[in-house]
């Protein structure tokens, strides 16, 4: 019987290593191609590592600030994602406090009505949302990507759940001491809900960084778009795979920020995903 278990161990390893190779090779291929010249790519075909390492692709990418301003795109994305994330954290913690810790007539009816409406499929909203952005003068501005997402209910639901798990005695004893709602929110509740805010913040950041459909619709100005929308233009700008090194270099640059975030906050990601699924992280 011991033997049986060992066999399954090797199968598990074999499977995992195969999967990891398949998962990593595209990235290595992308990185290595970004350091190869077009001539080498054409003549030598596929190689995991370049014959001659060159940085020309990156120099050209960074010098092109008119048709494909990649650094500017990344900067736009950073501004959008960071601002969006900070505002999400404020909105969901304040709103969550209202629905979880304050008593007022119709509170739960209101909450579940909004939650129910928010499940209405998003596809239907997109076209009118563009019109609203146009009315506000937000087309081709970061606000089109920062503000609408603040209306979502998913994270508020999460925060409300979390806050309901905190003992009410906390609020009550503070109230006896003369604290108002704002003090209780800021001094007592806010520090306690940090874990769930980190979760919501991480996903808001990644979500807004990687959003694709909406920025493609709402941005036409090359200088103002976020990097996801910008990369869509690259296939045309760098001539249908006539300049693959530049194409790959741009893709790699666009990946770096979220990858760094993952390296620093890996633990939170795992507990975040599990918290969302209603599992203990």
């Amino acid at each position, binding site marked *: 019987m011991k033997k049986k278990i060992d066999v*399954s161990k090797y199968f*598990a390893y074999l*499977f*995992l290593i195969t*999967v990891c190779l398949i*998962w990593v090779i*595209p*990235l290595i*291929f992308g990185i290595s191609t970004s350091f190869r010249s077009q001539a080498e790519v*054409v003549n030598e075909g596929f190689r995991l590592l370049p014959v001659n390492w060159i940085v020309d692709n990156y120099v050209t990418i960074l010098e092109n600030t008119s048709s494909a301003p990649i650094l500017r795109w990344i900067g736009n994305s950073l501004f959008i994602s960071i601002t969006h994330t900070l505002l999400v954290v404020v*909105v969901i913690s*304040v*709103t969550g*406090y*209202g629905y979880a810790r304050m008593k007022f007539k119709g509170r739960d009816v*209101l909450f579940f009505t*909004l939650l*129910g*409406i*928010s*499940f*209405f*499929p998003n*596809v*239907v*909203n*997109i076209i*009118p949302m*563009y*019109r609203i952005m146009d009315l506000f003068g937000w087309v081709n501005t970061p606000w089109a990507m920062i503000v609408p997402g603040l*209306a979502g*209910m998913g994270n508020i639901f999460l925060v409300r759940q979390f806050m309901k798990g905190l003992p009410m005695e906390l609020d009550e004893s503070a109230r006896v001491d003369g604290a108002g*709602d*704002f003090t209780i*929110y800021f001094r007592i509740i806010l520090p306690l809900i940090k874990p769930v805010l980190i979760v919501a913040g991480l996903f808001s950041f990644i979500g807004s*960084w*990687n959003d*694709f*459909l909406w920025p493609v*619709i709402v941005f036409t100005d090359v200088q103002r778009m976020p*990097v*996801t929308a910008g*990369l869509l233009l690259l*296939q045309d700008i760098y001539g249908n*795979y006539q300049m*693959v090194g530049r194409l790959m270099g741009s*893709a790699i640059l*666009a*990946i770096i920020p*979220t*990858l760094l975030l*993952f390296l620093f906050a*890996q633990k939170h*990601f*795992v507990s975040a*995903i599990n918290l969302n*699924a*209603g*599992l203990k*992280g």
Partner: protein
Amino acid sequence: MNKKKYSQWFFVGPHIILFIAFILIPSIYGIYASFTNWNLMTAPNFVGLENYRTILFNQDSSFHREFFNGMKNTLIFVGVSVPLMVVIPLLIATSIEHKKVKYKNFFQSIVYIPGLISISAAALIWSLIFNSQLGVMNNLFGFDTVWTATQPYAWMTIFIMTVWGGIGGNMIIYRASISSVSQDLYESAEIDGAGAIRKFISITLPSIKFPLIYTVVMTTAGSFNVFGQPLMMTGGGPRESTSVLMMYIRDLAFGSGQSIAGMASAMAVLLGMVLLVISACQYYIMNRNSA
């Protein structure tokens, strides 16, 4: 006392304004627009059920053809990608949670990382891999296929990229649920002589039923909104065989030339009706989760 009565609106009020402006009004307007010949800029004219009649029943109309082609392709995507995005991460999670496997977090990170990459960056890399002259597939494995322009390979490129970038979250959920299954169950099964596969089917699968349902519903809901992968990998081709509904909706409303936003809204509502069923499941699950 009087002050206390209204202070809740300071907390929930700002979000309600956001909700009305960016969820409630667009939803209602989106439904209304589907009954009009809206062109996005001037005031819409009410045309009743005309858009729906054209889309659903007018055989000669390009909208009819586009809707059914787009819906068919969206369903193909959902039908193939959802099972893949459940089964593959489940196998990976099971392997990682094998009690004698080490480097668990390393394997997990490798599989999760592509999920952090935007669709457009991932698509650039995968397009090059499947490129007929310069790509890995044809160079290394000697294929002689123009992958993105021949079926069924065009679909395959889309599925491969989707699975590559989309299974990390499900895998982490499965891992957490598998690791919380009681070891006693496995041990007593081992005493009864059950092998690895037997244990997986009789113990693991039933124990993680709820996370499985959760991921199936969430993955399905996400898959119906597919847009970026076909747009960037195949451009909807060959011969519109990978053109999904979201691509048609976007083209009609925001494409070059006169916007046909009314018709696009009607298509969006029809797609939304399919999604509503899935949303109902989501709502049910969230409430169950909170209980």
